[in-house]
C-alpha cells in the first residue's frame, strides 16, 4: 500500500499532466502526502509477523516479501515525509521555471522517486532492492538534468549516472554472487546462512566488496564522491529530497542492512570505517573553501554520510541510522532554506549574500536551527547522534584510533563550515541592499515543520530505538531510552569535542564580527583546491579519455567496407568449422 500509492500516483500524475497542469500538481501533492502518512502509519504499527511474501515469477525463486524491520520502516518514513514536504515546497519554487521546462516531468519523476525509495526500504529481496536501487538512480539522473537546456546540468546528470553506475555494477555483482552461493535472494535467509558459515568465505568476500562499492557509489563516498557536488545543478528541492534525505542514504542503509551478513569478514568493517573517515575529512575541507551555497551543503552531506558509513564500519548500526534520520531532517531543512534564499535573490554565490537576516527573518531562524543541528551544538538533534557515532568508534578500541581522530577533526570542520555558511548568508555588517523576502506559505510550512523536527526529533530516541529494534535481533543492539541517551552522552569524555565546537564558534563569531570578514581561504592554494577538488575529477577524466581513445582505436576495425566485412565473416566461418571438426 505504502509503495503502491506513490508508484501508481506517479502514473496518474503523468496522465493528468497531459490534460491540466494545475490539477496535476495538486494530485502530486496529494499522492506524496498520502505516501508520507502511510509510511508514518506503518512506523507506529510495525507488525510482529511480516506479511507473507508471494512469488513473482513461478519457477525462478524470486519472492517478493516485505522487510518490516525498524531499519527499513524508518528510511521509508523519512522518504515519505521529506518527499511530501519537498513537493509542497516545489509548488512555489518551481513556478517561475514552468514557462521553460515542463512541470509534468518534474512532478512525475519526483513522485516516482518517492515510491521507489519507499520500495527500496521495505523490500526484503535483494533483486527487488536492486530494481528500486536503479530506479532511484535513474530518477536522480533525470532530475539533476532537469534544466536540460543548460549544458552544465546535463553534464552533471550524466556524470552522476555514470559514476553511480560504477557502484551499481558492484552491487549487482555482489547480489549475483550471493544468489549463486545460496540459491536465494532473500536478505534474511542469506544472513542466516552466512552466520552459520554456510557461504564460502571467498564468495562472501567478493559479495562484501561488491556491496561496499555499491554503497560508495550511491552514498557518494570516497573515492566516488565526485558526482554529488555537481548534482547541485538540480532544482534545490530535488537536492533536498534526493541528494540529502533519500537517495544518498540508500548506500548507508544497504551497509547497515547487510552488516550482519559480513560480520565474518575481518577486513570488511575496517575498510568501511576508513572509507567513511576519509570521506568525512576530505569533504569537510572542501566545504570550508567552497563559495557556492549548494555545493557547501553538498560537501557537508558527503561529510556527514562519511560519519554514518564509519559508524556502520564499527558496528554502530543504531548510531548510524539515528544520524541518518537526524541528518535527513536537518539537511533537507538547510537545502530548503538555501532554496528559499536562491528563490529570493537569484544567486547561489555566498560572496554576493550577506546581511540577509533582516530581510528574511523566518528563513534565518529555520536555517539557524539547521546549522545548530549540523554543527552539533548541544540540545539539537545532530549533537546526540554525532556523539553516538563518535562513541561507537571509541568502543571499537585501538584499531579505530586514527579514524577516530580523523572523525573528530571532521566534526570540528563541520562546525567551522556551517557557521561560515550561515555567517556569509545572514550576518555581515550591512543589510542586503536589493529586494528580498521570505517565501510564501508553500515554502514556509515545510521549513517550519523540518525546523521543529531538527530541534525536537532527538527526544523521540526512545521510541526510535524501540521501533528500530523491531525484528532485528540479529543486529545485537540494545534499546536506548531518552534518559539513558542523555546520561551516556553527558558522561562521556567526548563532551570535550562538543566543548571545542562551542569554543570554535565563539572565537570565530567574535573575530568575524570584529573584522567584518569571514574566514575565507585566500591565496593560490585555496583556489587551486577549489578548482581541482583533490584531483579526483582529473583522475576520472583521464580514465574516461583512455576509454574513449581505446574505443577510437577499435573504430578503425570497422572500415565500413563490404569486402572486409565479408572477409571477416569468412574467417569467422572457418574458425567455427575448425572448432566443429576438432571437437
Amino acid at each position, binding site marked *: 500500500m505504502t509503495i503502491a500509492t506513490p508508484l501508481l500516483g506517479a502514473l496518474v500524475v503523468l496522465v493528468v499532466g497531459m490534460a491540466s497542469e494545475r490539477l496535476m500538481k495538486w494530485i502530486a501533492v496529494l499522492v506524496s502526502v498520502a505516501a508520507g502518512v502511510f509510511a508514518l502509519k506503518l512506523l507506529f504499527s510495525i507488525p510482529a509477523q511480516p506479511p507473507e511474501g508471494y512469488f513473482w515469477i513461478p519457477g525462478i525463486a524470486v519472492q517478493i516479501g516485505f522487510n518490516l524491520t525498524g531499519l527499513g520502516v524508518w528510511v521509508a518514513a523519512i522518504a515519505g515525509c521529506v518527499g511530501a514536504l519537498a513537493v509542497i515546497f516545489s509548488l512555489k519554487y518551481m513556478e517561475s521555471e514552468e514557462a521553460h521546462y515542463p512541470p509534468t516531468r518534474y512532478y512525475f519523476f519526483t513522485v516516482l522517486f518517492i515510491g521507489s525509495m519507499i520500495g527500496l526500504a521495505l523490500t526484503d529481496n535483494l533483486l527487488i532492492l536492486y530494481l528500486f536501487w536503479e530506479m532511484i538512480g535513474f530518477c536522480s539522473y533525470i532530475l539533476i538534468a532537469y534544466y536540460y537546456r543548460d549544458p552544465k546540468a546535463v553534464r552533471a546528470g550524466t556524470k552522476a549516472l555514470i559514476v553511480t553506475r560504477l557502484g551499481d555494477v558492484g552491487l549487482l555483482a555482489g547480489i549475483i554472487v550471493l544468489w549463486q552461493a545460496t540459491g536465494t535472494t532473500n536478505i534474511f535467509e542469506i544472513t542466516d546462512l552466512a552466520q552459520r558459515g554456510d557461504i564460502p568465505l571467498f564468495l562472501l568476500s567478493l559479495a562484501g566488496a561488491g556491496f561496499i562499492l555499491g554503497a560508495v557509489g550511491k552514498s557518494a563516498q570516497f573515492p566516488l564522491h565526485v558526482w554529488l557536488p555537481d548534482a547541485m545543478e538540480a532544482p534545490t528541492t530535488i537536492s533536498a529530497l534526493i541528494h540529502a534525505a533519500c537517495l544518498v542514504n540508500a548506500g548507508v542503509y544497504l551497509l547497515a542492512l547487510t552488516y550482519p551478513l559480513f560480520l565474518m569478514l575481518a577486513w570488511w568493517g575496517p575498510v568501511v570505517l576508513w572509507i567513511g573517515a576519509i570521506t568525512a575529512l576530505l569533504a569537510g575541507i572542501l566545504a570550508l573553501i567552497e563559495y557556492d551555497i549548494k555545493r557547501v551543503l553538498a560537501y557537508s552531506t558527503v561529510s556527514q554520510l562519511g560519519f554514518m558509513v564509519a559508524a556502520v564500519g564499527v558496528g554502530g548500526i543504531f548510531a548510524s541510522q539515528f544520524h541518518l534520520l537526524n541528518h535527513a531532517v536537518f539537511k533537507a531543512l538547510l537545502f530548503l532554506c538555501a532554496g528559499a534564499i536562491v528563490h529570493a535573490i537569484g544567486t547561489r554565490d555566498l560572496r554576493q549574500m550577506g546581511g540577509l537576516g533582516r530581510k528574511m527573518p523566518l528563513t534565518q531562524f529555520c536555517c539557524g536551527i539547521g546549522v545548530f543541528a549540523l554543527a552539533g551544538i548541544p540540545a539539537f538533534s545532530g549533537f546526540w547522534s554525532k556523539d553516538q557515532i563518535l562513541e561507537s568508534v571509541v568502543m571499537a578500541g585501538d584499531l579505530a584510533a586514527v579514524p577516530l581522530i580523523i572523525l573528530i577533526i571532521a566534526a570540528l570542520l563541520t562546525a567551522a563550515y556551517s557557521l561560515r555558511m550561515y555567517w556569509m548568508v545572514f550576518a555581515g555588517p550591512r543589510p542586503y541592499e536589493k529586494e528580498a523576502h521570505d517565501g510564501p506559505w508553500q515554502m514556509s510550512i515545510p521549513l517550519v515543520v523540518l525546523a521543529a523536527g531538527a530541534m525536537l526529533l532527538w527526544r523521540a530516541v526512545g521510541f526510535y530505538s524501540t521501533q528500530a529494534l523491531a525484528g532485528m535481533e540479529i543486529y545485537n543492539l540494545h534499546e536506548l531510552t531518552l534518559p539513558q541517551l542523555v546520561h551516556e552522552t553527558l558522561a562521556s569524555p567526548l563532551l570535550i569535542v562538543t566543548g571545542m565546537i562551542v569554543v570554535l564558534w565563539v572565537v570565530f563569531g567574535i573575530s568575524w564580527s570584529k573584522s567584518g570578514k569571514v574566514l575565507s581561504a585566500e591565496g593560490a592554494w585555496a583556489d587551486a583546491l577549489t578548482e581541482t577538488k583533490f584531483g579526483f575529477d582529473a583522475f576520472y577524466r583521464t580514465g574516461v579519455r583512455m576509454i574513449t581513445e581505446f574505443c577510437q582505436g577499435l*573504430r578503425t576495425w*570497422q*572500415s*565500413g*567496407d*563490404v*569486402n572486409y566485412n*565479408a*572477409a571477416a565473416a*569468412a574467417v569467422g566461418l572457418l574458425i567455427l568449422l575448425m572448432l566443429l571438426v576438432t571437437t
Partner: protein
Amino acid sequence: MWSAYWITVIFLFSLGIYTLIFRHNLIHLIIGIEVMAKGLCLAVLVGGAQHAGGVFSVSQAIVITIILIEVATTAIALSLVVAAHRHTGTVDVAALRRLKG
C-alpha cells in the same frame, strides 16, 4: 560418386566468398551471394540424398523454400542497389564507405 557433388558444393561456396571479398561491384556481390546460396542448396539436397533411410524428402522441400526466399531477398537487394546508385551515381561499394561507424 558423391564426392563429385561435395566438391561442387565447396567450389560454389568458395566462389561466392571469393566474389564477396574481392569484387567491388554491388551487382557482382549479389551474384556472389546467389552463387553461395546455390552451393548451400546443393549441399542440403546431397545431404538429403545420402540419408541413411533412403532419400530424405524434407530436404527437397527445404530447398524449394530457400529458393523462394532467395528470390525475395535478391529483389530487395537489387532495389537497394538501385537506391545506392541513385544516391552515389555508381555501383562501387567504396562509394558507400560513409556508412563507417
